[in-house]
C-alpha cells in the first residue's frame, strides 16, 4: 500500500483528499501547512506528496523547494493542488520542483490518475 502525504490548510480539503485516497487504497498522512508537512516528512516516508499552494507559515512553493533541497527526499514526487485557470501557478510550481499538478475542485478519478502518473 502506498502512502500519500496531503498538505493543505483547509480541513475540508484534507478530509476530501483523505476520503478519495483512502477509497482508492492509499494510506494517507496529513499536514496543515508547509512547516507541518516538513515535520511529518521527517518522521515518515510517503510515496507521493500532494500539497496546496496557499498556506500560512510556509506555502506550497516553499515546501516543494525545501523538499527538493533535502537529499533524502529529493526524488519524492510532489503534486500541487491548483485551480484550472492558473497557468502561471503551474509554471511556478514546476520551477520550484513540482512533479505535476491536480486541479481543484478535483474528481477522485483524476486525482488517482495523476498520482499514478508520478508514483511507481
Amino acid at each position: 500500500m502506498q502512502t500519500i502525504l496531503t498538505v493543505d490548510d483547509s480541513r475540508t480539503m484534507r478530509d476530501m483528499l483523505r476520503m478519495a485516497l483512502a477509497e482508492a487504497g492509499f494510506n494517507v498522512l496529513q499536514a496543515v501547512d508547509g512547516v507541518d508537512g516538513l515535520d511529518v516528512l521527517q518522521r515518515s516516508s510517503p510515496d507521493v506528496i500532494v500539497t496546496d499552494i496557499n498556506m500560512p507559515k510556509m506555502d506550497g512553493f516553499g515546501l516543494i523547494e525545501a523538499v527538493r533541497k533535502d537529499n533524502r527526499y529529493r526524488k519524492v514526487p510532489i503534486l500541487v493542488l491548483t485551480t484550472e485557470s492558473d497557468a502561471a501557478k503551474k509554471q511556478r510550481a514546476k520551477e520550484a520542483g513540482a512533479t505535476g499538478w491536480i486541479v481543484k475542485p478535483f474528481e477522485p478519478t483524476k486525482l488517482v490518475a495523476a498520482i499514478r502518473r508520478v508514483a511507481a
Partner: protein
Amino acid sequence: MAAIRQTFFQECEEQLSEMEIGLLAMDEGSTDSETVNAVFRAVHSIKGGAGAFKLSQLVQFAHTFETALDFVRSGKLNPTPEMMKIMLRAADVLADLVEASREGREINEASYETVAVDIKSLTLINGEEEVEEAIDFQPTVIDFGLPDISVEAAPEQTAEASREYRIAFTPRPELYANANETALVLRELNRLGAMEAACDASALPELENVDPNGAYFSWSIRLSSGHDIADVREVFEFVEGEADLSIESDGQPEVSNADIAALLAMALGSAPASEPATVSESLATARETEIAPAVANMTPAPVAAVETAKPDAKTAAVPSQTTIRVEFDRVDRLINLVGELVINQAMLSQRVIEANFAGSSSVIIGLEELEQLTREIQESVMAIRAQPVKPLFQRMSRIVREVADATGKEVRLKTDGEATEIDKTVVERLAEPLTHMIRNAVDHGVESPEERLAAGKPAEGMVRLSAAHRSGRIVIEISDDGAGIDRPKVRASAIKKGLIAADAQLSDSEIDNLLFLPGFSTASTISNISGRGVGMDVVKRSIQALGGRISISSRPGQGSTFSMSLPLTLAVLDGMAVSVAGQTLVVPLTAIVETLKPKKADIHALGAEGRVMSIRNTFVPLIDVGMQLGFRDTATQPESSVAILVETGDGARNALLVDSIQDQRQVVIKSLEANYGTVEGIAAATILGDGRVALILDVDALVTSSFEDSVSGELRYGTGG
C-alpha cells in the same frame, strides 16, 4: 460526504472570522503583507470548498472577491479607505452567502448587486477585465464511488480506428530533478495502446564523465491507439515543459517544440526564442529570480516543529498554538466531575477532622496539599472552557457597520482586551445583550455627522468595547462619544409612563438608571434598530441571570458608558455560608454590600407584619429569611442574629436577617431544577463538606417574594401569623 460538508461550513465560520480580523486590521491602516495574505487565503479556502460542493452563487462571488484581494496582495491595488469600505461590505455579503448555502437556499442577487458591482470594478484594469481570471464554472460531479483503478497490464481497447503516433521524447535534467520518471510516463502511454519504444543512449558519456543529475537519453516511440491526440498529449502533461517533445499523428506533425518555446517565452514575458535551448535558459533565469524572494520567505529552520509563538501584534494570523478539537459535551462532563471532586475533597477533609485523625500533622498536610491540588485542577479545567471574547467582539463590528449604514451615521468600533477569556457558557449568553447595547450606542448614543460637526466633534463617532479581568470577575464596558443621556427627556418620559412621581427628586445617576426600568423607551418612533420593546430592562435581566451587574454613567455632550461585571464562570459561585434555623444557606457574594450586627434599637416595625432596619440614618426593609422560606414560624430576635445588607438588581437595598455567618467560600453550583424542581427564592444548590445540601439564595427573588407577601398579608411558605 455529509460529514465533510459539515466540516466545510464549520471551517467557513473560522475563515470568515479570519477574513474579518484581517480586513479590520487593513482598515485601521495595517499594510502588513501577512495580513493581506491571510484574508486572501480565507476567501480562497471558502471558494475552494464551495466549488467542491457545487455552491455556484457562493463560488461566483467568492471568486470576484478573491481576485480583488489577489490584486491587493500582489501590489496591483493599493487599499484606500473607500476600497476598504467596499471590502468590508463584500465580507458581509460573503458571510450571508455562506449562511444561505448552509441552509440550502440562494440569496436574491439584487440585494447585494451594488457590492458585487463595486468589488468587480476593483478587478478591472483600465476598465478591462483581466483575461486570465475568466472563470469557466462547470459543476464538478464529485462521484465518490469506488473507481476501478487496478493497474492494467493490457492496454485499453477502443472501438475507434487505430491511429499511428510517432513521439520523440528527450527529457531534460529538470524532468528528473522534479521527480518525474520516464518509465512511468511510458507506462501511462502504454495504457493508450500498443507501443514500441526505442531508447537512444548515444549521448551518454563515459562513466567518469557522467553527471548524476544529467539527462542523456532520448526516446522514439511508436504508438497505435484509438485515442485522439489530446489524450496522448495528456500523458505528457506534467513533463512537457521539461523535455523536448514532439508528437506526430499519421505523419502530420503536432505543434512543434519551437512553437511551445514561443508560447512559453511569451508567458514569461521575454522575446520569443527560436531554439528549444533558449527555452530552458529563459526558464532557468526566471527560476533564479523567482527563487530568491521565495528563499527569503522561508524560515531558516524548515525542520523546526510548530512553534508556540505569541500572537504578533503586526500579523493578523491566528495565534500559532497547537490546538485540538474536543466535543463540548466531554468538557462539560469533565467540569461536572471536577466539581464533584471538589465537593468530595471538602467532605474528606471534614470527616478526617471530625474523626480526629487530625492529630497527625502529616495527615493535615496531606489534606491541605489535596485541597491545593484540587483547586488547581478545577482552575485548569475551567480554563478549558474559557474562550477569548474576540469572536464575539468581531460580530459587533459588523453590527456597528450595519446600524451606522441604516441610520446614516459614521461610526467606528474600537475594541480592547479581545484576548480576555471567559467561560464559553457566559460568552454565548452575552451575545444578545451586547448586541442590543451596541445597537443602542450607534442608534441613540452617537449623533448624526451634522450634529457632531456642529458640536465641534469629528464627524465619525466612536464606540468603544472593552473587556478586562478585575478582581476575579470580567468587566465589560461599552462607551460611546455621543451626546450622552438626555436627562430631562428621560425624566419626562418616566413621569409620563408613571414610573416616577412628577416631583420626585432624583440624582443624575438615578435618572440614568431609569433606563433599566421595564417598558422604558425614549425612541419617539420605534425604529427598526432598537426600541421595539426590547428595552434595557431585558438586557439588565440577562446580565443578572449570568450573575453579573450592570450600571450606566453618562456625561452630557460627551457620551455614555455601560459597565458590566460578570463572573468568570457559571459553574462555581463565591458566596457567604450562613445558618438559618439549623440550615446552611449560601448568599452570593455579588449581592452582599455589608454585614451588620443589629441592635434592638435599630429595628422598627412597619405596618402589621413588616420590619425595617435603620442603617446610618436610612431605613431598609428587613427580611427574616427563616420565616420567608418557611423554616420557622416565629420571627427571629434581631439581637441574636446577623443582618446582611444586600443590593438587588434594581439597586434597592434590603437587610436579610440570618442566625449567624459561617464563612466565605467558593461553592460548586448544582442545579436544583435538574435534580429536584424549581423553588422560589432559591437559585441553585450545592453540597457541603459534611455531605449536606445547602441552598443558594436567589436574592432578587427572595426580596420580591417578601415584598409581595407583605402586600398580600400572607407568607407564601409559612402559616401566617
